[in-house]
């Protein structure tokens, strides 16, 4: 139980996927204009991450390892993740057109999102059990959502600022993201790796 | 009893000593009276006199145009020289009856003073309407409309607003001190009309002498005397109701929704005159004060007297840089001293250049003082920010329309940002958009 909690805290704060591992930066920068969208994206990523880590874990230990097909890991995982994301996209589109509209082109981005693939690979590398990998996935997704929402809040405030012309747009957003990552560095060592 | 106080609020300096304790005087008639036909909220009155016609004091010069409208009367006897657009306190030139006083000051027809008890409620309301009584605290809303709530609304409490929280102004105080009996009678009339069981006089604790004067009267008549801790804007209707009764008026509602009727002291005095003597509202108490005025005082001024005449009468130290009608917190600066005193004018303040804040607006440092000062619990800095960038949806979500424009936020803002102006703009734009859609 304690180890699960540590995995969770570690994934949310210490080794935050976005701010410490720098994975999934594309949606982080792309879908964080508004807090609501960021939250929606976080939810979508959470769903994809948890389901993907379950599927890839099963795939790894039921198919790839028994048949000595470990070298197929990357391609097999990508296949599974891509399918999942496609399905999420269809479901979101049907059930919540507003969310779909605001997520825009970024939903398909999860397909090739390194955060999801990285998570699946890390699960295997760290020899996590099935439950552990689920907790890790949930923690990572939570950390991702947290980073997204914090950053979206900051960006909403940035739109009110008279930023000097040369820093307007992406430069100031990257500086802000950098400062946010700096703040997260304080968590270093909080949980033994 | 610990009274609840409204949230927020500020403590602007009072500046009331110059005019608070001197008896009011009668202002001499000017050479020309300009009586605007729009002196109230609602449709302007329709002129019923023409140039060259002689009118008596109190004679009708403008007929009410609809239910939410009141008639306008001649403030003195004299010759109508024109009915034309003239500078109006709102800033534009609006139709007004221009009157040249003949000095005789002859009344049209004097009513016999009679007790209001013999009159029916309808008759009293009719007299109030005929006399053109409007809210004299500044809003100028027709009183007969306020006294005639729609079916289903029950008024159980009447509050006399004697708070006068604006700096410099002491007109209501003088009315209360000099016409105590009139105000108390008026309160009885109000109770009679509205059927309210409870009556209060709301007063701030910076006027202990008035409280002492009123205490025996109130005790005799069963009127509650609510002496409230001094805080701006105590005189705002919603804030006063909360401070006196603990009831919160719904943001989109009116005081009648919580069974309360609030009337300003001056209004009540005018209403008594209207009901008991049938006298129209042609004169009111006005505080003439401010750093640029030599002899600050309270004057009983005929409606339509140009501000320039008042300033001349009281003397100005130098050419004033700013002339304000009303108080310094919510009053409006005038572009010309030719504007007349209207029914809602509680004060005329003149400032020299050196009395005005000179600092320019800086960036908001997010100190949160405006949030703490807002008596409506809003976040002025955000609303103003949204307004400046025309994000009306966001401004509305932050309840921009609840703003009562009391000025507490701008008053306190260390960066001197004109928050109220931005919010006022947002309110107007939101309403305009609503009307369009």
């Amino acid at each position, binding site marked *: 139980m304690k180890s699960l909690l540590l995995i969770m805290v570690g994934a949310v704060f210490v080794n935050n996927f976005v701010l410490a591992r720098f994975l999934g930066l594309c949606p982080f920068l792309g879908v964080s204009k508004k807090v609501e969208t960021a939250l929606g994206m976080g939810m979508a990523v959470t769903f994809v991450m948890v389901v993907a880590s379950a599927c890839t874990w099963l*795939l790894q230990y039921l*198919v*790839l390892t028994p*048949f*000595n*097909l470990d070298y*197929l890991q990357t*391609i*097999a995982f990508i*296949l*599974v993740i*891509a*399918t999942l994301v*496609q*399905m999420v996209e*269809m*479901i979101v*589109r*049907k*059930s919540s*057109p507003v969310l779909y*509209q605001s997520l825009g082109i970024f939903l398909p981005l999860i397909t090739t999102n390194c955060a999801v693939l990285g998570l699946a690979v890390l699960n295997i590398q760290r020899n996590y059990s099935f439950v552990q990998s689920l907790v890790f996935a949930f923690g990572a997704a939570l950390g991702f959502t947290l980073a997204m929402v914090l950053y979206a809040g900051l960006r909403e405030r940035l739109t009110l600022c008279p930023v000097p012309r040369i820093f307007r747009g992406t430069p100031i957003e990257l500086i802000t993201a950098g400062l946010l990552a700096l703040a997260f560095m304080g968590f270093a060592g909080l949980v033994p790796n | 009893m610990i009274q609840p106080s409204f949230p927020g609020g500020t403590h602007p300096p009072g500046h009331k000593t110059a005019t608070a304790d001197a008896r009011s005087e009668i202002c001499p008639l000017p050479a020309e009276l300009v009586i605007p036909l729009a002196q109230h909220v609602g449709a302007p009155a329709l002129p019923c006199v023409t140039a060259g016609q002689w009118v008596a004091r109190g004679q009708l010069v403008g007929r009410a145009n609809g239910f939410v409208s009141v008639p306008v009367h001649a403030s003195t006897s004299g010759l109508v020289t024109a009915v034309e657009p003239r500078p109006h306190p*709102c*800033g*534009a030139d609006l139709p007004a009856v221009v009157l040249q006083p003949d000095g005789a000051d002859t009344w049209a027809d004097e009513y016999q003073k009679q007790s209001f008890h013999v009159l029916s409620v309808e008759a009293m309301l009719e007299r109030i309407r005929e006399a053109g009584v409007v809210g004299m605290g500044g809003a100028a809303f027709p009183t007969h409309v306020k006294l005639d709530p729609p079916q289903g609304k029950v008024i159980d409490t009447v509050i006399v607003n004697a708070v006068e929280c604006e700096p410099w102004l002491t007109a209501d105080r003088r009315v209360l001190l000099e016409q105590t009996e009139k105000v108390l009678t008026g309160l009885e009339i109000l109770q009679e009309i509205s059927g309210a069981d409870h009556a209060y006089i709301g007063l701030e604790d910076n006027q202990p002498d008035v409280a002492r004067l009123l205490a025996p009267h109130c005790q005799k008549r069963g009127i509650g005397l609510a002496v409230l801790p001094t805080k701006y804007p105590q005189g705002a209707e919603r804030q006063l109701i909360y401070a006196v009764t603990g009831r919160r008026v719904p943001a989109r509602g009116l005081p009648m929704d919580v069974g309360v009727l609030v009337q300003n002291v001056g209004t009540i005095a005018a209403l008594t005159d209207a009901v008991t003597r049938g006298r129209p509202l042609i004169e009111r108490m006005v505080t003439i004060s401010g750093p640029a005025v030599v002899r600050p005082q309270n004057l009983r001024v005929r409606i339509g007297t140009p501000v320039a005449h008042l300033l001349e009468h009281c003397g100005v130290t130098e050419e004033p840089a700013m002339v304000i009608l009303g108080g310094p917190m919510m009053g*409006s*600066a*005038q*572009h*010309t001293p030719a504007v007349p005193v209207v029914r809602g004018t509680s004060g005329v303040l003149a400032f020299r250049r050196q009395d005005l804040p000179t600092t320019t607006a800086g960036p908001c440092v997010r100190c949160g003082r405006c949030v703490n000062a807002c008596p409506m619990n809003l976040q002025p800095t955000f609303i103003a920010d949204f307004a*400046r960038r*025309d994000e009306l949806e966001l401004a509305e979500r932050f309840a921009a329309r609840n703003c009562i424009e009391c000025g507490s936020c701008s008053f306190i803002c260390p960066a001197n940002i*004109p928050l109220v*102006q*931005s919010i*006022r*703009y947002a309110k*107007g*734009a939101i309403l305009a958009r609503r009307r369009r859609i």
Partner: protein
Amino acid sequence: MMAAVICLGSLGFVAALLLGMAARRFAVTVDPRQVALMDILAGANCGACGFPGCDAYARALVAGTAKPDLCRPGGAETLKRIATILGVAVTERPPQIAVVRCQGDLQHARLKYAYQGLQDCRAAQKLARGPKLCPAGCLGLGSCVQHCPFDALAIDSRGLAMVNRSRCTGCGLCVTICPRQVLALAPANETIHVLCNNRESSARVKSYCNAGCLGCRLCVRTAPESFVMDSFLAKVRYGYGEPSTMAEAIARCPHHCILNLDEQGNNQTLPTPHSVRERSTP
């Protein structure tokens, strides 16, 4: 090798099966025309069409609740393409451009009061109807400049709004923003305009400003086919009249309020705007 093929093959098959089922179950139909329209519209999200953004306008177009000629920045080209996609016939409307109809700077126009407050025309207009005596004159606080999505407006050295005619797309946003309707849309190919917006009588205009249209009808008498009167304000009948007679009318205007503008919005009738000022200042 075989195992890999089988493994990936079956994985692919399962994935395809799932996706196929999902596609059925959660099918959403989108009008392909809407997608096509989104590509055509200007994409500035200026809101001139009255819809919140190009996307909303595209949806309204497909739904048939909006007219196809509302995208002003896109101009005639966009209109044509929208019409092709929607399959409707439209009449072409000439491109338009915004004109600032006021020359009442501080040298020419009287102030009503000294304004202190927010640098925003609409906010200033609410204070005693604006700081300029003329109720139709440009306040020069730049609300139009702040809102122009194409950076085509500026406050010039005289303190009046100025249209950069090469940048203006005629979206008309400034026209709705200006609280005094100083800005108006005019055909883009026209360069001669009456730069005054006050319909009041000459006595009133003279008391406000000495660069305003007096309603003297000199221009109408000189070039009757090119100018008309709107109350006491002369207006150009765009597209009519000879340039030579118009030039004569320009020369005869006593307050010099008919101007021939160049691309930057400067006067090209006279050598410089400066000389206008010198001539008309008493």
